[in-house]
């Protein structure tokens, strides 16, 4: 079904946050902390990063002042929404000895429902990829499902491309096309709001607003076009699947391995990386707990099997990450694992650039 877009002001945005809160959502959105724009609890418009933007490059992130008071005038930061939908550490169950032998208690799933404010198009695509990984295969992940179901997504069409952004190359942005309840496009002090679901339309109906005009809609399209034209990075994505898999012994892997710290940062900030380590650990009381934490294909133990690690060298680990992300992911899940958000470039301490690595391999 089609929905009607509206225009809201700052009072409408405040009412949106208030309405989500009244409806029982835990509202999470961008806010300034530790010289960066992170995702955290949002109580109102005042918590949003008004007048802030960021400068991003390989291994470099700096918060800067804008010359206006835009609330969403920056690219994605260090956090991805996966830290809420797929938390870094989960207790799964605990087993305690009792008179009957063992008593097993599953960790309860949270009852709170999330509302994400300010989800970018690349992030909607990333969430859709994790939905596929966790919900759409033969084995549904109950922990992801509990957090994902009932989540309310307010997207924002990017008005600024970051220095490491390349969503336009990956066909994942900058304009949000699916997977949201509402989308905002920011103008000075005003937002075009486009519903993407019945829940979104119903919520929009409760906000102070005016009907959007053709001119408003045109202006929003122009914002996305301008952003698409100012991407900080570009990746030639066509044929990258075969390119990488045909070049598994390319000398560039040695080159990147010399720079790679195998610290795992790229995988931890990547909004689609989903790998975990599951550990059963007992304590001195005789109880055992099973936990699941984010792991990384950059750690040696990640590929440990009897006799040792399958990928002992950083070269093999970097190659595994990049070929999975851009090539074998397609075979496995039917889409690329990369959404062009640029986080792996910005948050790599030595600024390894996945777009540059592809270019180098393409160069022969």
């Amino acid at each position, binding site marked *: 079904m089609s929905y009607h877009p509206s225009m809201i002001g700052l009072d409408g945005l405040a009412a949106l946050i208030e309405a989500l809160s009244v409806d029982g959502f835990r509202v999470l959105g961008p806010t300034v*902390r*530790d*010289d*960066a724009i*992170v995702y955290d609890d949002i109580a109102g418009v005042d918590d949003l990063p008004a007048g802030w933007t960021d400068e991003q490059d390989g*291994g*470099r*992130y*700096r*918060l800067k002042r804008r010359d206006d008071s835009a609330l969403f005038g920056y690219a994605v*930061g*260090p*956090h991805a929404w996966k*830290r809420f939908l797929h938390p*870094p*550490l989960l207790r799964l169950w605990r087993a305690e000895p009792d008179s009957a032998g063992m008593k097993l208690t599953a960790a309860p799933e949270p009852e709170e429902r999330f509302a994400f404010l300010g989800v970018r198009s690349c992030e909607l695509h990333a969430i859709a990829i994790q939905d596929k990984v966790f919900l759409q295969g033969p084995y549904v992940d109950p922990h992801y499902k509990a957090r994902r179901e009932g989540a309310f997504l307010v997207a924002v069409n990017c008005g600024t491309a970051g220095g490491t952004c390349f969503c336009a190359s990956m066909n994942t942005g900058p304009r949000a096309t699916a997977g949201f309840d509402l989308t905002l496009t920011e103008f000075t002090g005003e937002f075009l709001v486009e519903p993407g679901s019945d829940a979104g339309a119903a919520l929009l109906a409760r906000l102070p607003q005016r009907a959007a005009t053709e001119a408003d809609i045109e202006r929003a399209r122009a914002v996305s076009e301008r952003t698409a034209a100012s991407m900080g990075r570009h990746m030639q994505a066509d044929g990258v699947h075969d390119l990488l898999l045909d070049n598994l012994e390319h000398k560039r892997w040695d080159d990147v391995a*010399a*720079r*790679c*710290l*195998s*610290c*795992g*940062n790229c995988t*931890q*900030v990547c909004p689609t990386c989903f790998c975990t*380590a599951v*550990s059963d*650990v*007992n*304590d*001195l*009381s005789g109880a055992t707990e099973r936990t699941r*934490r*984010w792991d*990384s294909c*950059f*750690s*040696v*133990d990640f590929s440990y099997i009897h006799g040792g690690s399958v990928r*002992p*060298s*950083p070269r093999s680990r970097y190659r595994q990450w990049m070929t999975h992300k851009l090539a074998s992911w397609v075979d496995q899940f039917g889409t690329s694992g990369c959404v062009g958000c640029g986080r792996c470039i*910005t*948050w790599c*301490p*030595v600024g390894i650039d996945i777009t540059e690595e592809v270019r180098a391999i393409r160069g022969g």
Partner: protein
Amino acid sequence: MAKPPRKPKLAVWKFASCDGCQLSLLDCEDELLAVAGAVEIAYFPEATRAVLKGPYDISLVEGSVTTQHDAERLLEVRRQSRRLITIGACATAAGIQGLRNFKDVREFTSVVYAHPEFIETLETSTPISTHVEVDYELRGCPIDKHQLLEVLTAFLNGRRPNIPAHSVCVECKARGTVCVLVRGAAACLGPVTHAGCGAICPAYNRGCYGCFGPKETPNAVSLAPRLVDAGMDKTGLGRVYRTFNPVADAFKKESERHGT
């Protein structure tokens, strides 16, 4: 009536060190009674004067070897111990006192002590593993008490300790800390340092000091230019890797690459 099974005997030994790692065991507070219930504390002078004779099922060894007397004492500790676990940076990688390895220790003693002739010490500070076989090395300056409990529990149950060897970065990301290096707040050794502390320093706007020593497959050479960008000079690069784990192979090599 059958006798209850004998509890494993635990001994805690001190070599050249500050006692901070042993203190982590006493620091266990809530879990200390569980430890005392699971083992018989047979030798732990920092906690009790009671001494039980060896052999011991588990020996925790703190500190490095800096005297001939300690080198000989350590052989006896090993002989008396079924399992020997080193605790902390001194025991594992020579500790702060390992700075002597790069200089002339007699010069130090002549400056520090009024009567250096009373000081009998070795030219170098060496890890426990230089002298005897070690069953497990627990990292940190000081060690993390939760990791200590995990290692003790693992050994008491005959399983592998769940102590990841990945970078401190993984812990920063798990707790949501924004990278201090990338945002330009501090020079940080996190990408080459073994996890275990829970990434405390970056959470307080400081770079990682490398207390837990090198992570698995560390690449300090690649990190060096970024430390320079963050304000570290050549002298700093030479020194930063010597602070707590000066003889850990990857840290030693990198510090020597920058001279001094």
